[in-house]
């Protein structure tokens, strides 16, 4: 127990530093790359004076350290900020000016600030709205991945010289050579438009998750198939397999209790490091193409429109998830193999 507490405290402290660094990097880079969110908010035909006025209103002309300090101050209080572009309902945010007698009075300015502050959608809410959809897609994608990859990877590893290994290799090679955006479009065209078997664009029910989940699974499966094949084949070369046979253990017990258990540690690490990244990246592209209302679509739109608070919020969330997944993976690995305790 003491080990677990120490382990968690140490890793969580490291994780907080990682998230903090990621947040700063993303925050600074967004402000250094070209692209002014205010011009996108107001359109291309507005005057430079209006643009500057709006930019100052949003604090975008303050020095980056000042902006970041304000952001972190809000962040530690659980406020990820508000979208520049999306309103409370996910729609329009007000940019109106309240004026009296042709001049913006201090009172009107405050009222206008308050109006804008309250009507722009909080990033936390936008992420909260999209997260269940993304989790559903990721979950179904992983389910499809495991349904395909586990039998292929295991059988390929157990029979390295047989057709099972070739099937695993060719399936993995085929899947990895299919670009996800291309596969998405082909599936929509064939399964949805031509065959009318499944719906595809947007979300009006669970069925809308199936095609994007298949695309996600095709992207993830090769990594699992290949990793599992190699890992299981490696374990099969170990002495404990011969030992188990000599001791008269049933083959299924040797495979499930010894081979798979030993092969699972590299797979766990692979899952923690690679799958997390692949899953996130895959979800983003897939959601955008299928117009699936999750965090991926929200993020891509935010990037295209330079909606900084959303990008920052999602980056922090993604960094936090990856840190937690890796802590969990390491913790599970120590339970599987006690020698890994550190």
């Amino acid at each position, binding site marked *: 127990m003491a080990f677990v507490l120490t382990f968690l405290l140490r890793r969580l402290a490291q994780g907080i530093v990682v998230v903090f660094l990621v947040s700063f990097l993303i925050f600074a880079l967004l402000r250094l790359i*070209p692209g002014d969110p205010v011009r996108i908010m107001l359109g291309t035909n507005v005057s430079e004076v209006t643009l500057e006025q709006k930019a100052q209103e949003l604090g975008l002309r303050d020095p980056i350290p000042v902006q970041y300090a304000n952001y972190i101050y809000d962040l530690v209080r659980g406020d990820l900020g508000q979208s520049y572009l999306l309103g409370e309902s996910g729609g329009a945010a007000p940019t109106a000016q309240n004026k009296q007698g042709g001049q913006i009075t201090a009172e009107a300015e405050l009222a206008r600030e308050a109006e804008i502050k309250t009507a722009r959608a909080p990033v936390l809410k936008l992420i909260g709205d999209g997260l269940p959809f993304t989790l559903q897609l990721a979950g179904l994608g992983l389910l499809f991945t495991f349904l395909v990859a586990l039998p292929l990877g295991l059988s390929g590893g157990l029979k390295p010289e047989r057709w099972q290994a070739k099937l695993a290799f060719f399936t993995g090679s085929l899947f990895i050579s299919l670009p996800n955006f291309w596969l998405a479009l082909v599936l929509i065209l064939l399964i949805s438009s031509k065959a009318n078997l499944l719906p595809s*664009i947007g979300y009006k029910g669970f069925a809308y998750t199936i095609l994007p989940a298949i695309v996600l699974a095709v992207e993830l499966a090769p990594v699992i198939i290949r990793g599992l094949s190699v890992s299981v084949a490696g374990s099969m070369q170990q002495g404990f397999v011969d030992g188990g046979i000599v001791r008269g253990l049933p083959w299924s017990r040797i495979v499930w209790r010894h081979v798979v258990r030993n092969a699972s540690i590299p797979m766990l690490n692979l899952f923690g490091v690679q799958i997390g990244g692949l899953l996130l990246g895959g979800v983003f592209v897939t959601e955008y193409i*299928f117009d699936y209302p999750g965090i991926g679509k929200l993020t891509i739109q935010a990037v295209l429109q330079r909606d900084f608070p959303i990008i920052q919020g999602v980056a922090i969330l993604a960094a936090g998830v990856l840190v937690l997944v890796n802590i969990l993976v390491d913790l599970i690995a120590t339970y599987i193999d006690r020698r890994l305790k550190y």
Partner: protein
Amino acid sequence: MAKTTRRTFLKGAAAAGTIAALGGKAPFYKRAHADSRKYITYLQTEPLTSSWDVSSHTILAQIYFEHHVFGKLIQTPMTENNPEQINFDLATGHKIIDEKTIEYTLRDDVYFHAGQKFGPEDVKATFEYASDPQRPAGTWYPGQAEVEIVDSRTVRVRAAKGAYPGSLFWFLSGFLPIMSADDIKNKAIGERPNGTGYYKFVSREGPTTKLVAYDKYHLGKAPIEEYISTFVGDANTRLLSLLNGEADLIERIEPEQYETLLKEKVTVARTISTENKYLHFRGHRKPFDDVRVRHAACHAINRDLLLEIMGPAGHKSVGQLSPVKFGYTDTIAGTPEYDPDRCQQLLAEAGYPKGEGMPEIEYLTSVGFYPKTKEYGELIAVMLQEQGFPVKLTVMEVAAWLDRVFDTKGPTAPQLADTGWMTGSPEPNLVVRPMWHSAGSILSNCSSPELDAAIDKQQTISDPAARKASIQTELMPALAKQMPSFGLFTSVLIHAHNNALKGLYIYPNGPMDLSKASWSA
């Protein structure tokens, strides 16, 4: 569309998962178009990002939305055969009173969606509020307007401040959505859209906006009860949505999708737009500070080849105005045509024989907004290089490109930039003033006193016929002579919709009139 809450979402997911696990054939899939006869689903290319206040933005998607919800004094359909056509909407007539004043007579049977009766005070409040130069969309108007209420059905719009005539509102009134005076007074215009249009606002959830037909619409209730628009950023996704029946109407068909769609059972509509595409010259940096080099560049570009690349998305035009703009003419004295020999002659005269001694030229263009900009940008770069211009093409995604394209003064501003300019009125001043008058120069900075004078002159002429003549015989030749921007071609808007949808009209700046649209049997 059923409202999805987290509770129903989780319940649905669990139930559907169970059915799927039992091997049932997706029973939850129902093609959207099966019951779409009561509504129309439109997929928009850009999101609504601004306030409901029509004067708070210059965003195209928002302008499209406003067309359904707000009425205007007049509508300007801007057909190619008759760009000057005016259809009366909230007004029943208009006349020019004097150089500074235009008078409108108003309908007496119009109500706002929130219940207020439309009257002259609404016109006064809207014109005076929206034309305020401090409003973000104030740039559309030549200056602050003042409105005099003559009686309960008559108003006079006066160009009180600034050197422009009241007659400029002849067309501009067709671009200004009329807001309620109460809303402006009570500062409620940003809270919800309240107009007199054929559809009224119902809800906005995420990227989806829902409108319903307005019972009291003064020109008769729209046949299609409901309008649902959703922002879908990806062009292929939009197209596939139309093909699988989940959308009824889509916009911005890519040129390469056009041929594919012609083979499908959908209707494809091409509309010559108000937008010309330009190659803007920046005269504060060499070599385009010399008008001869600007003309040489124009002579180096074969626009017929650009049109081949654009395919159905391009339309041949002459000069800087679109054919659906007031004052367009296809006979402009001094318009440069493709002529490599003349190009070389001008380069030699300017001191750059065969381009020798010319500094590197950055040509900035975008990808992801206008169709084919990268493809024809590469062709333009090659054609210029062939004549000796040391051109370097920079292609940027939209947000980054927007950041640089309006830089017309900086030391590192690109010397060449590609943009379009979409405006919602036949009024040419919406193009010529911001771009080529020295007071604007937002994309090109090659103005001259002579060009300024030509721009100023035409806008002070009250009589439309005399003004048109001034534009065609003085302003356009002045633009051809000074050549601050080279008009490459006119953009064509390509929409596609369900074959059963009839009676819609697509305006050349993108909005669609669905007031008479209906589903055929």
